[in-house]
């Protein structure tokens, strides 16, 4: 039950969406960062490999060698190295390695300068500074550095001041990275290698070009080792590798960071969501509480609109409007019941009291007769009232039974006029009728009741010497019954109540005339049951005209 509440549903969805968003974000970030790190590693080892590959292979074991290698000024290294090339050409001592450098062996060569070789001199140095790292190696002055230092990596260190720090530090400085290299000859013999060298499987890669793209792999024996192979001079192959354990560790740390931060964000998000849903649901609870106290017996309460704003305010207002309508409907119902009971109680009291009085002692035959007459009058009134109520109740339940037959409305209208004739004479009212034959399909009895009701109302609410006009016409495929009187009319404030049950504009007059206050309500029910309309126009003291339209 609790978990089916809107609040829990919201919270669960909120959690799911939040988790999904966090995981995707963290995953994207993780992949991106780790990729960037590993591609950085690749760049570093490739850079180192290129440097190695660009060295002349003259001395059998570099790192141990005596003189520094001189760079062949040849083909220029890397892309866009022509200026460097030119420089090298100008300054270089072309000592026969030109061939090596011609098509791109990455011309520069290293002086295997040891650390203590010192940096280049100031002016040379400044010139070298303008060059990219790789080409700088080709600057002939550099060759002058003594060779035979700790080797390649020391050489790299030697250049530390000039090259981007991270490249050096990654490949050369951090011992944990365990950098290593290996140079195979064209025939696959190992020409050079670094001193610490892990198990390295031979790697057969065919380079189509001497300066072809580097190929990367993970060391097949140790997944922690990343290796690259690039073509070296004389179709040699240079492999440089190093451990990525540090990166792996960093990546793992990053993953854990993401997990913890994600969990924190999730917790904050869920707590915030819970607070928000609590706040959002509070007015709903208020509405519920109010709505619960509103019952059929007490519809007077309304939801406080001040506490509920926005969409909930609209909801509350809608509910309030509904309560208003219900309230009105219930009050009308209560009023109707009270009216009906009142109307029934009065004749009942007459019967009861007359009988009680008659029985209280011996009466003459005349007295008994009068008593019985009074009882009869009262019971007739009750009978007509009960019948009227029954018609209305059936109409309300949409069970007003109609016996539709085809008949001429004119005939029925004539009968109705005949029926009210005595009443008209008694009230000194002149009834005129202008009737044309209109065949309609309807319940003959009900239509007769309708017309009689309207006529007797027109006579009842008239003044002596007044007139009533009844007309039956046909218009636009409808039968139209018009009953117009010259009577007192209906006051404007009463007009909207005219069809209400037990409504009587003038209680005295209608009671004296024997009306129950249900006549027009019944007329309306009959007309509506036939799918017609009833309307009226009235002016105070200007007479009233009722117009009934019935489908033919």
């Amino acid at each position, binding site marked *: 039950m609790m978990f089916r509440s809107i609040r829990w549903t919201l919270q669960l969805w909120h959690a799911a969406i939040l988790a999904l968003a966090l995981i995707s974000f963290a995953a994207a970030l993780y992949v991106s960062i780790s990729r960037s790190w590993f591609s950085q590693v690749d760049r570093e080892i490739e850079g180192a490999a290129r440097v190695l590959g660009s060295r002349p292979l003259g001395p059998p074991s570099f790192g141990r060698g005596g003189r520094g290698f001189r760079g062949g000024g040849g083909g220029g290294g890397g892309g866009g190295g022509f200026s460097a090339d030119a420089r090298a050409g100008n300054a270089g001592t072309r000592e026969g390695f030109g061939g090596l450098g011609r098509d791109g062996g990455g011309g520069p060569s290293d002086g295997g300068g040891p650390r203590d070789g010192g940096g280049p001199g100031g002016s040379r140095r400044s010139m070298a500074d303008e060059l990219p790292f790789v080409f700088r190696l080709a600057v002939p002055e550099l060759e002058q550095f003594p060779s035979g230092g700790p080797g390649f990596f020391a050489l790299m260190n030697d250049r530390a001041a000039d090259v981007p720090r991270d490249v050096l530090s990654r490949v050369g400085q951090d011992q944990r990275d365990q950098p290593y290299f290996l140079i195979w000859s064209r025939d696959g013999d190992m020409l050079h290698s670094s001193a610490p060298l892990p198990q390295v499987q031979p790697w057969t890669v065919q380079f189509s070009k001497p300066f072809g793209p580097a190929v990367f792999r993970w060391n097949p024996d140790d997944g922690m080792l990343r290796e690259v192979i690039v073509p070296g001079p004389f179709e040699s192959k240079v492999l440089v590798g190093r451990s990525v354990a540090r990166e792996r560790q960093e990546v793992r740390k990053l993953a854990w960071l993401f997990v913890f931060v994600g969990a924190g964000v999730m917790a904050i998000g869920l707590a915030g969501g819970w607070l928000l849903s609590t706040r959002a649901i509070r007015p709903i609870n208020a509405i519920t509480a109010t709505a619960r106290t509103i019952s059929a017996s007490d519809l007077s309460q309304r939801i406080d609109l001040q506490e509920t704003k926005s969409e909930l305010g609209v909801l509350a207002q809608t509910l309030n409007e509904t309560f208003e309508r219900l309230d009105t409907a219930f009050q009308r119902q209560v009023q109707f019941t*009270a009216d009906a*009971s*009142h*109307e029934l*109680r*009065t*004749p*009942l*009291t*007459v019967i*009861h*009291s*007359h009988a*009680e*009085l008659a029985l*209280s*002692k011996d009466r003459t035959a005349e007295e008994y007769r009068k008593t019985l007459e*009074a009882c009869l*009058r*009262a019971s007739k009134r009750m009978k007509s009232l009960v019948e009227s109520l029954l018609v209305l109740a059936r109409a309300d339940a949409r069970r007003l039974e109609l016996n539709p037959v085809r008949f001429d409305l004119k005939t029925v209208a004539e009968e109705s006029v005949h029926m009210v004739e005595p009443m008209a004479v008694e009230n000194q009212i002149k009834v005129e009728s202008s009737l044309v034959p209109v065949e309609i399909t309807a319940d003959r009895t009900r239509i007769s009741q309708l017309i009689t009701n309207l006529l007797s109302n027109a006579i009842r609410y008239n003044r002596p010497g007044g007139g009533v006009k009844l007309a039956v016409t046909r218009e636009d495929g409808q039968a139209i019954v018009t009953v117009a009187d010259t009577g007192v009319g209906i006051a404007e404030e009463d007009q909207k109540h005219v069809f209400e049950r037990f409504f009587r504009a*003038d*209680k*005295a*007059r209608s*009671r*004296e005339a024997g009306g129950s206050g249900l006549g027009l309500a019944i007329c309306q029910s009959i007309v509506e049951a036939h799918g017609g309309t009833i309307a009226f126009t009235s002016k105070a003291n200007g007479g009233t005209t009722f117009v009934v339209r019935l489908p033919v």
Partner: protein
Amino acid sequence: MRLLVVEDEPDLLTVISQSLREDGYAVDTAADGEEGLFKAQGAAYDAVVLDLMMPRMDGFAVIKELRKGGSAVPVLVLTARDALPDRVKGLDSGADDYLTKPFELAELLARLRALIRRSAGKASAIIEMGDVRVDTAARMVYQGEQNVALTAREYSLVELLAIHRGELVSRSMIYDHLFDEEDDSLSNLVDVHVSNVRKKLGKGFIQTRRGQGYVIDNGPPAADGGAEDDDDV
């Protein structure tokens, strides 16, 4: 005792007034609120029986107008409306008692007797004056243990004087209370009734204050808190 019945239903007006007359009351009738108010303001009634739902002026308005004019006449309201708010409103607007239609005539009569008694400051149905005892519930007068046979008019006279014992009751007041509007008896009929009662209950029972009226005052004051505590209300 003279009563006014205001009721718009003619058959009910007839039966109530006839029943009250048969019980010895002088009864005036009115068929709507306006007429009822007019009559109630114009004559001294011992009680008014008033319907609430009436044309022209409803019962609430009649009571209000009546009370505004300073009248303290006991009003018994008759109505077909039995919802609590209606009853409360009726009593609050100045009605003294309430009876819902349909009602028993016997109850109406009992409630009227109680109203009249209380308005005269007598709580008991039995009023004792020396050896004479008036049972207003049974409408009987006893002398000692002996039931004294009185006509309805004679009884009403005794009752009126008994309720107002110790007070001077004028001849016109007796006339007003004993005869209704349709009664065109001569006012000296009061003297005839007084002399008839004296014949039956003893010469000293009713004393004459010449030129002013009559008084019954032969008993200890406040002797009416009698043995029988009536409560038919």
